[in-house]
């Protein structure tokens, strides 16, 4: 029983990290149809900022955390300004490739100027505290992650449905020029979205580095690939969908890891992704996406 509870907690923690990243992807996608594969590099920027600060002797967590998050936000804003703004009206595939380009560029920059090898970053080790509640082992990090994802998801949903800026973001996804035609400063709208996604990535970076204690140029790739999948099973572009998709993915992963007989262990990925494929084939609009009959209309 304790074992099961423990694993459920683990799944929630896995899931909330995916959710955090998926939200960052979803907000950018939902406003400009961009599948931002460079989201992982925003995490990397946050992580390397911590490393550089430690090398410069500024290794206090109180200093490192806010600055890393800030660097991630600035990184996201810079990506938007330099790479994504010019391809704003272009087809999805163009945006996706531009994001690949950014991702390759940033990874190689860290590789060239810092190192191809992992570097240890242990300032946040303090967050790896274990608290025992009865027989349950709770990691402070897991609880924080879960809490932060919850708060962030709710906050974002409120923001997007209640504020004019949020409305404009949702509108911009489909008709960018029209948003400008009602007098909204479109650049600001998009920059805000990128800023938010950078913020989410920055927070994720703090959690990831705290757990790994180490950084690498390509550390952002796998988490973001998973988050991308989470987004889609939740219904791409839907924020609650991203959060739910993230959690679900966490449960699928942990579930398969725990339940699959060891001799099939090598097929873990195959089975996880076969399940995802099954979800997509049966509900292509995603779990939270609604399938409404549109006729000749659209939405």
């Amino acid at each position, binding site marked *: 029983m304790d074992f099961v509870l423990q694993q459920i907690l683990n799944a929630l923690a896995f899931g909330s990290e995916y959710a955090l990243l998926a939200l960052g992807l979803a907000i950018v996608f939902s406003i400009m149809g961009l599948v931002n594969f460079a989201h992982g590099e925003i995490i990397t920027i946050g992580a390397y900022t911590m490393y550089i600060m430690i090398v410069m002797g500024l290794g206090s967590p109180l200093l490192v955390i806010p600055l890393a998050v800030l660097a991630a936000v600035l990184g996201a804003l810079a990506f938007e300004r330099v790479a994504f703004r010019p391809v704003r009206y272009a087809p999805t595939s163009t945006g996706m490739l531009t994001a690949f380009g950014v991702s390759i560029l940033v990874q190689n920059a860290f590789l060239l100027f810092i190192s191809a090898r992992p570097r240890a970053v242990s300032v946040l080790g303090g967050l790896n505290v274990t608290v025992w509640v009865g027989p349950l082992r709770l990691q402070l990090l897991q609880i924080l992650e879960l809490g932060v994802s919850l708060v962030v998801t709710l906050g974002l949903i409120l923001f997007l449905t209640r504020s004019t800026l949020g409305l404009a973001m949702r509108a911009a996804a489909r008709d960018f020029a029209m948003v400008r035609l009602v007098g909204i400063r479109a650049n600001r709208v998009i920059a805000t979205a990128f800023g938010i996604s950078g913020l989410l990535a920055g927070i994720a970076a703090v959690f990831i580095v705290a757990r790994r204690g180490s950084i690498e140029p390509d550390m952002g790739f796998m988490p973001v690939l998973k988050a991308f999948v989470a987004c889609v099973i939740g219904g791409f572009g839907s924020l609650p969908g991203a959060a739910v998709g993230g959690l679900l993915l966490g449960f699928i992963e942990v579930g398969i890891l725990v339940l699959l007989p060891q001799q099939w262990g090598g097929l873990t990925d195959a089975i996880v992704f076969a399940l995802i494929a099954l979800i997509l084939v049966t509900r292509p609009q995603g779990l939270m996406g609604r399938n409404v*009959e549109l*006729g*000749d*209309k*659209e939405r």
Partner: protein
Amino acid sequence: MLEVRGIGKQFGGVSALRDVSLECRKGEIRGLIGPNGAGKSSLINVISGVLTPDKGAVALDGRNVAGKGPEVAARAGIARTFQNLRLFANLSVAQNIEVALTSARALRPDAVRGFDLHAEMVAFSLIARSEDAARTLSYGDQRRLEILRALALGPSVLLLDEPAAGMNDVESAALAELIRGIRDRFGCAIIVIDHDLHFIMKLSERITVMDMGAVIAEGPVDAIRRDPKVIEIYLGSTP
């Protein structure tokens, strides 16, 4: 012969169609008018298989095509245009038509045996733009291209959703001639929705009027023009 019987369609709380019935013979041009949101486009959507009705049937020469998807309707010879244009934006004008023609050649070869693409493009004043991407045409040209594309399916039923929208009197008069010519040459049944009354009255033999999802009047042009109910909810004053 197209027979629409007892169609009903709900969208959430909105009844878009309530027990709508309508007939249209080969070679007949039928006008369909009514206030905004009356359900005209929805009816066309049902006939063309784009919407699945909650109840009722659409029979083409006795065969039911309702609710079987747009492909089935198209194969049966039902072609349509869209109120909000749906061209293949990045394909050329000629390719837009070719898409329909390819289907027709495979599925209804007899219907398009006499179809002369070049002559039709000349007739629709699209020939000079035939190799340009559809998205670069002006709104009026795009509407004409939609009609021509529908024609290239060799339809036995042609559904036109506001074909004259965005055209002035001179242009819509020319368009009316064009549509009449289609009827004469291809002998198909044509249902036309439009809010341009000059256009619709000049073109059609009979008119069906809808309001709130139901048919409220049906008859020859002159009778409709004078029907007080139609004047009250739709026309506002006698045209």
